[in-house]
């Protein structure tokens, strides 16, 4: 059995930042990621990030991945387990893992779950045709492996991911025929929408997919308009001959390990699905299990990084490690999170999180 002080599950923006801050307090960190390369979805983000300098604003996601990775890789307190899938968290605190086909056990003193989220899909006739892909999948294909998903795309969903991936498709030389969203308003940042519009791509708000066409692979998509009660209007159909349709209708937390560990979970629509109840310092209802990033509620990568730093501090502190200015650091991170969430675009997140927080004084029920 492999001992560990803090085991961090997931090496995306949240997990990397958690490793950096826990290690800074002198804590020994084991950082496990199921992929060969760490960085999570950051490694596909070719656009510049929003936020402030503290969250690497104006730096491209791929470059942020490089910055965070170099801090982790050169850190003697961090051991990286890549190509390692965490299989389970058991009642006695034992964690099981599979590294490149080798099964083994880990006994950590604290755990930070930073497993991220997965893409949701949408029901419509023939949505199973090859060519109907998650927007993130297309991003992986073109930005990580340099392969075009097809020639012409309809993007379903005008949230930030839908808008960003549409722009990236055009940068990769793929035509975007239209962006379609059932909502009457664009959900993503309007600056993203504007930069796509001035490339000549239409955004059909208040529209949804009627059906996909094709027998072996996707050949086209028909959309139609919705009335103000979200019912489709006959006769408003538009058909696009495309070989790819991207689905970008939101993400849902990858929370299986939290369920298994017995963390109290709550369904919060605004945060993407079932999310763990936790205190302000990101400790769940199971003592010693902390969360950070999309698994604790789907939002922007900037917040995931700040949450990572906070969870790393909290977990290390839980194990007795500290630093002279720990309270100052925590306050700063809380303030960063509040600032990122305080505006109108953070309203949903604020509402969602308010349903989840229990005070640190309240009963933390179980121990790992």
């Amino acid at each position, binding site marked *: 059995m492999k001992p560990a002080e803090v085991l961090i599950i997931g090496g995306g923006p949240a997990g990397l930042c958690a490793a950096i801050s826990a290690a800074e307090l002198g804590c020994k960190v084991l950082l496990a990621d*199921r992929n060969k390369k760490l960085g999570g979805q950051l490694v596909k983000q070719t656009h510049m990030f929003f936020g402030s300098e503290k969250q690497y604003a104006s730096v491209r996601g791929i470059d942020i991945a490089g910055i965070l990775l170099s801090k982790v890789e050169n850190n003697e307190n961090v051991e990286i387990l890549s190509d390692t899938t965490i299989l389970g968290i058991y009642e006695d605190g034992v964690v099981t893992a599979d590294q490149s086909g080798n099964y083994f056990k880990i006994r950590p003193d604290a755990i930070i779950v930073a497993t991220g989220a997965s893409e949701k899909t949408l029901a419509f006739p023939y949505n199973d*045709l*090859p060519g109907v892909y998650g927007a*993130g*999948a297309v991003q992986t*294909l073109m930005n990580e492996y*340099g*392969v075009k998903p097809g020639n012409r795309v309809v993007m379903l969903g005008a949230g930030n991911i839908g808008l960003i991936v549409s722009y990236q498709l055009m940068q990769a030389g793929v035509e975007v025929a239209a962006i379609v969203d059932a909502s009457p308003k664009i959900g993503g940042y309007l600056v993203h929408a504007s930069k796509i519009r001035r490339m000549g791509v239409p955004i059909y708000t208040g529209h949804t997919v009627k059906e996909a066409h094709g027998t072996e692979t996707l050949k086209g998509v028909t959309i139609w308009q919705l009335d103000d009660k979200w019912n489709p209007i006959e006769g408003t159909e538009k058909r696009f001959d495309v070989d790819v349709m991207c689905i970008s209708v939101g993400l849902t937390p990858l929370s299986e390990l939290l369920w298994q560990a017995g963390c109290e979970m709550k369904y919060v629509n605004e945060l993407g699905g079932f999310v763990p109840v936790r205190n302000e310092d990101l400790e769940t209802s199971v003592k010693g299990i902390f969360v950070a990033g999309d698994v604790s509620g789907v939002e922007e990568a900037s917040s995931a990084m700040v949450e990572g730093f906070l969870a790393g501090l909290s977990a290390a502190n839980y194990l007795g490690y500290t630093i002279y200015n720990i309270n100052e650091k925590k306050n700063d991170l809380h303030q960063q999170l509040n600032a990122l969430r305080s505006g109108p675009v953070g309203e949903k997140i604020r509402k969602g999180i308010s349903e989840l927080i229990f005070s640190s004084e309240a009963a933390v029920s179980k121990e790992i």
Partner: protein
Amino acid sequence: MRIQEHPILIFERGSKITFTYNDMLLEGYEGETIAAALHAAGVRVLSHSHEKHRPRGFFCAIGNCSSCLMEVDGEPNVRICVEMVKDGMAVRTQEGKGDIL
């Protein structure tokens, strides 16, 4: 279908390798997934569903959804979106649920 020039990214592809897809010889690059190599070669249909035999492609491409299961070097149910392609690999369309033993 490979991107040659990109305004932001530089693709540093590994060495060229060959593998088979249902006995057909295809090319790929070291360091990329089987799914990426197949897609670049124009293969989008990865299997057919068990009951209605509907064509199946990948959906998430990061190992979450299991829509891309294929038989690789005799092993069934391999998520080819996270399995790296290797020289000489035999990738096959999987019929049925796959025999593990």
